[in-house]
Each structure stands twice: as C-alpha cells, then as structure tokens.
C-alpha cells in the first residue's frame, strides 16, 4: 500500500526550526472546543477549523487550541471555553465561525470577555 508522500517534510521541519524562536514562550490563553457527539453534530469541527485558519492567517503564536468532550449543555452547542492565564474560564455557547473569531480577537488575545456570547464565567476548568 502506498504511503502518503512526506518528502518535503524535512524542508518544512528546517523552516519551522528557523522560525522557532518566534514560537517559543508561554501561551497566554487556551481555547477548548467541546467535541462531544452533540458538539460535533452541531458544527464544532467547523468552529475548530475556522479558529485554526484565523490563527494561521494572523500568525498567532501564543494561543493553545484543544478539544474536550461534552460540557453537559447539549442544546447550546457548539461551545468553547476560553481560559486566559490568571483569569477565570469563560464558556461560550451557540457558536458560529464569526463568533469564535470575535472571541479569539477580543477575549483570547486582548482579554476582553465577549459577554453577549458567554454562558457563564468561572465554571469548571478543563485542565
């Protein structure tokens, strides 16, 4: 069986190493996309992809994106939790691509909670 071609991967590796200094340092925020069955059915993968594309487009280095399971509020999916270092986590509900990008830009990057999309502040941590 044919293996996926990864011949250029070494070039990519060297390119990443050259720019590695820019990518070091502590993350200032973590965004967790809830990927339970309910979240996935409601469009969580689209939210995650939109977030990854925005982070790539803007060359953002200090935001961690991760996933977790169902948060227990299936009717309000897709959901995400934003944790800015030193601040209580905030859960966002009924997300769309546009909403998550606004949350990334305003909350994760600038520290300003987007209260119109937030469900609760200070809920349980995801890690």
């Amino acid at each position: 069986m044919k293996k996926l071609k990864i011949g250029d991967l070494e070039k990519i590796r060297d390119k990443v190493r050259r720019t590695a200094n820019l990518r070091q340092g502590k993350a200032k925020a973590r965004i967790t996309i809830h990927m339970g069955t309910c979240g996935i059915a409601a469009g969580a993968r689209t939210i995650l992809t939109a977030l990854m594309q925005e982070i790539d487009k803007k060359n953002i280095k200090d935001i961690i994106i991760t996933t977790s399971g169902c948060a227990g509020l299936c009717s309000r999916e897709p959901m995400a939790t934003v944790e800015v270092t030193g601040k209580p986590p905030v859960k966002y509900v009924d997300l769309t691509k546009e909403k998550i990008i606004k949350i990334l830009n305003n909350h994760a990057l600038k520290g300003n909670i987007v209260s119109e999309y937030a469900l609760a502040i200070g809920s349980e941590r995801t890690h």
Partner: protein
Amino acid sequence: MKDLSLHILDIVENSIAAGAKNIKITIDEDTKKDLLILKIQDDGKGMNKKTLSKALDPFFTTKKVRRIGLGLSMLAQATRETGGSIDIKSKKGEGACITAIFVYSHIDRKPLGDITETLISLIATRGFDIDFIYKHYKNKHGFIFDTKVIKKKLKDVPVYNTLVINYLKNNLTKEFEKLKKRSNA
C-alpha cells in the same frame, strides 16, 4: 451527523476519552462487493462486559455530565439504514475495535464527508501525544497515513505546528483527489 467523517471524529473522541495513545482508522470502499467498511481500533482502557453490552443503547453512557450516549447508537443507526451492521469488540484494559459496515450504493448511505478536515482537527489538537494511522482503500487502490512516521521525520518540530498542519492538509487533499481519479478511471 450529516456524514461519515463526523461520525469518525465522534468515535475517535471516545477513544481519546478512553486514554488511547494509538488510534487506527481504516476505510475500505469495495464497490464490487457493494460495501463500505469503517474500522476504528484503539488501545484505550476498553470496556467491561456490562458496558460493552450497553454500548449501543442511547440511554446509556459512562459520562457524568448527561444521561444519554448517542455517538455509537447513531453510528449503528446509520449502518442499519443502509442494511448494514455494526460490531464492537472490546475487553477491559485491551482497547476497542468498532467495525461499521454500510451497503455502499444504498441511497441512505451517508457520504464520506471531509475526512481531511477530521484528520487535521485530530492531529492539530491531539497529535502531540496520540498517534493516528489512517488507511483508505478504494477497490485496489489506497494510501496509508501514519503520524508516527511523520513525527520521526519532524524530530523536535511539533506535528501541530501550523506549517506542518498545512503541509499535511494539502497532501491529504491531493491523495484523496488521486484516489477519486484512479477509481473513476
């Protein structure tokens, strides 16, 4: 779930929740036998006999946050809608293997969807500590994608780096296009 790529993401999330470190996904599109077989194997904590016997019950879940568990039951329903079936094998401490069989040409068989998006979502968010092997066959043709091989080439560079992710995304997209062209030829 509107397509099989979302079911895959959902079942793999179960494997991740079960502590799996190696997850193998195989899709076999066999148009001659008129079957599409999806297999997901993991090395997670597995299920005991009681959990296994209830795994397809939508009103059973091991989770504490809610009382229903729809992931596997919805996949089972998707197979049955085509005249297919699902099989789950698991032992406590020995991982799990889920095989979903669909009748390929059935009008109710869900499309494959964007498998690349599912794989990239998994690698970008969980690829740092979990390895994924993806095999896709369409009749005689196919390809294999193994994050262990990729990580070996990358050495100290993380697999979730955006340059790496974009590279893998492009290559996977090309591979699926080639597979489509070859099998149409």
